[in-house]
């Protein structure tokens, strides 16, 4: 595993020398139709243009299915279905609304295995993550918000909570089902109807969710799901019939949406990019901080908006941290996302892989040194990248400033807490941050001065439906989850 650990092995290891895990592929295979229409008014319908697009598995490049491409006419149909459904949905007894959410949550649990496999096939993430995080968290969001549905007046004491109306929601490809749940659950709980647009490369679990909505008899039109690419998203976002737009994705697109909606009465929340700092102080528990670095940057191939992609290490411990980080990184298992022992799966798309490689080239050109998992050969087919970190990165380098959205960590150092804070906050983003110290007073001091929506102390990338998530500055505005997350889907009178 580690050449330094290997070097002096002189013992008789005939039994243990080659103890390797056998392939442990997840056996469940979900049913995938050859083609999926758009989910409008409770039915799967053909896109009006007849245009379809293929969705591929990033780990095999195999075509999994084809899905409809919604155009402006389909958007119009979906918005008017949502508008019609809204009249009834906003008036049914809140406890009845809650029942639908609980039913959706239970159905997600019942189909958990199937959904997890589908998520890993379509998106490339390791099955252990889709099985242990994406799918259970998606169910939790429906359970959690189901609980709020009949208590909204108590969430904001002294105010009466009214639904906003029709909400368009555009979600990214990194947590397809989970982001759908983050968006749909609070919207429904608050009495709104929804048009959801899943990402171009990962539409399948959203469509599986549509099937679940049919199975639980959710009234037609309450949730509509339109697949398609950027153009579909653009026509949805600019439709005049919306009351609310929620977008999770790149800062570039988020800015455009904000511009377009300026001066209208459409409510907007944006959850955008990040370049989150993860700060290791010399009084941290180093071995556990290493786990935090790993969870921060290599979870989900680094396709995480709040990834701890800028590592700041206090200079006194930088050698120890890098030595241990390298050891730990070499133990990561990269490969088939459906293998239960895989730690790092495939990059979501060819385009994203190209983008990440571009950053690596640029980083090296600017003088950074690349350290990557050596490990066995990667599969020939599919989109793969070895987890890596860059040393010799200066705060002014592009790899230290721009969001890479891949398994690439930029390592920098600091000498004093003041310098750590200055460097950590020196970014247009402000989504998340990590602080590692065993000293309580330092944690409280630093955490309160970091400009980020979420600050994790001695942990990283932990989420909960009851905990609000969202950004500062160019990472967006509005919160998702918790009581705070309800606010975006309610008018208070």
């Amino acid at each position: 595993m580690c050449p330094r650990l290997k070097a002096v092995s002189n013992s008789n290891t005939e039994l243990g020398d080659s103890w390797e895990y056998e392939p442990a592929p997840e056996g469940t295979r979900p049913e995938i139709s050859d083609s999926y229409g758009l989910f409008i008014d409770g039915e799967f319908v053909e896109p009006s243009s007849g245009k379809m697009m293929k969705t591929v598995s990033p780990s095999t490049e195999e075509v999994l299915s084809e899905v409809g491409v919604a155009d402006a006419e389909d958007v119009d149909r979906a918005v008017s279905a949502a508008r019609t459904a809204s009249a009834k949905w906003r008036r049914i007894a809140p406890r009845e609304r809650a029942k639908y959410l609980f039913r959706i949550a239970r159905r997600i649990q019942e189909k958990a295995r199937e959904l997890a496999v589908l998520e890993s096939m379509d998106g490339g993430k390791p099955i252990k993550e889709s099985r242990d995080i994406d799918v259970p968290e998606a169910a939790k969001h429906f359970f959690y918000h189901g609980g709020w549905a009949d208590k909204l007046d108590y969430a904001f004491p002294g105010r009466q909570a009214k639904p906003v109306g029709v909400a368009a929601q555009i979600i990214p490809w990194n947590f397809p089902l989970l982001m759908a749940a983050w968006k749909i659950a609070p919207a429904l709980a608050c009495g709104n109807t929804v048009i959801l647009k899943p990402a171009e490369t990962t539409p399948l679990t959203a469509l599986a969710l549509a099937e679940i909505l049919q199975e639980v008899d959710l009234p037609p039109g309450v949730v509509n799901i339109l697949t398609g690419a950027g153009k579909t998203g653009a026509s949805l976002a600019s439709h005049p019939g919306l009351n609310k737009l929620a977008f999770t994705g790149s800062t570039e697109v988020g800015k455009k949406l904000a511009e377009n909606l300026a001066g209208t009465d459409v409510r907007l929340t944006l959850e955008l990019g990040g370049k989150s700092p993860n700060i290791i102080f010399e009084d941290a528990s180093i071995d556990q901080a290493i786990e935090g670095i790993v969870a921060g940057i290599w979870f989900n191939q680094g396709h995480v908006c709040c990834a701890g992609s800028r590592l700041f290490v206090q200079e006194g411990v930088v050698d120890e941290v890098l030595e241990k980080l390298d050891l730990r990184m070499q133990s990561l298992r990269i490969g088939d996302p459906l293998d239960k022992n895989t730690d790092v799966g495939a990059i979501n798309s060819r385009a994203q892989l190209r983008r990440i490689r571009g950053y690596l080239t640029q980083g090296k050109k600017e003088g950074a040194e690349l350290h990557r998992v050596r490990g066995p050969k990667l599969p020939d087919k599919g989109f793969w990248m070895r987890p890596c970190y860059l040393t010799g990165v200066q705060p002014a380098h592009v790899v230290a400033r721009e969001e890479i959205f891949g398994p690439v960590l930029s390592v920098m150092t600091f000498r004093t807490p003041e310098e750590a804070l200055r460097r950590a906050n020196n970014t247009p983003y402000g989504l998340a941050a990590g602080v590692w110290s065993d000293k309580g007073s330092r944690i409280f001091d630093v955490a309160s001065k970091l400009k980020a929506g979420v600050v994790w102390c001695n942990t990283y990338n932990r989420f909960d439906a009851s905990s609000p998530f969202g950004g500062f500055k160019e990472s967006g505005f509005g919160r998702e989850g918790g009581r705070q997350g309800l606010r975006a889907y309610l008018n208070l009178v």
Partner: protein
Amino acid sequence: MPVRSGNSSVFVDPVMVAQRASSFTRRSIKQKAKIEGLRLAVSMVDLTTLEGKDSPGKVRALCRKAVRPDPGLEGIPSVAAVCVYPAMVTVAHEALSGSGVRVASVATGFPAGQTSLESRLDEVRSAVGDGAEEIDMVISRGALLTGDASRVTDEVRQVKSVCGSAHLKVILETGELETLDRIAEASRLAIAGGADFIKTSTGKVAPAATMEAGLVMLEAIRDHFLKTGKVVGMKPAGGIRTAKEALHWLVMVKETLGNEWLTPERFRFGASSLLDDILRQLHKQASGNYAASYDVPEA
């Protein structure tokens, strides 16, 4: 309060340790990997009996089981050692001679260690004289918990000096140390005193060998190796009863220290009932059916 010395990590955060330790229990070990892992685990067992009612007859039966754990199964290695009280060393030494299975003896006033240092050293000398090839000593937990760290190292060093060629395993009794900070500290002190192995527990105190304590100890072993190039072995003991738990430990060792530590020379399980569960699992792998308890020979 532990203090940071040099560049070695002294603080341990139990939350993240628990998270990492539980990740090892979620690896999927199937088919060939499972069979090989279980055979490997058999070869690492220190088959143990440490009871007031131990008799020469019981020890001889245990020794036969140690040499050939299950005549009904092919390709099962002998266990690594038989671990007994000092009074039983002579019997074990005789029963195991020429078998390749080593004789290990607990000593130093096991399990509490609350006797004079002189009598503890005498106990070690006599066990070694009777043929013990490995000594499992206990540290003075009371000294460690009241801040007398140097006494711990010093006693390990003295015991080591009377071990001769016998290997020294140092029992930290992690259940009494309670915090992972203390377990990390005790690991370093034992290693500094010259321990060949560090061992979690006596088996007389609960909790015994938890994965969390084990991970902290393995990391101490790794840190020592990275700094000095010197190898120290690891022995979890107490509370590991199932084949599944044994595989979790092998995964943890593999992913923390590498395959090089997956050998009886560097890793042992201190156990009594574990062996039978492993054998039952191997029966299941061979025949497809779960073995009844009477299918596995008794010690």
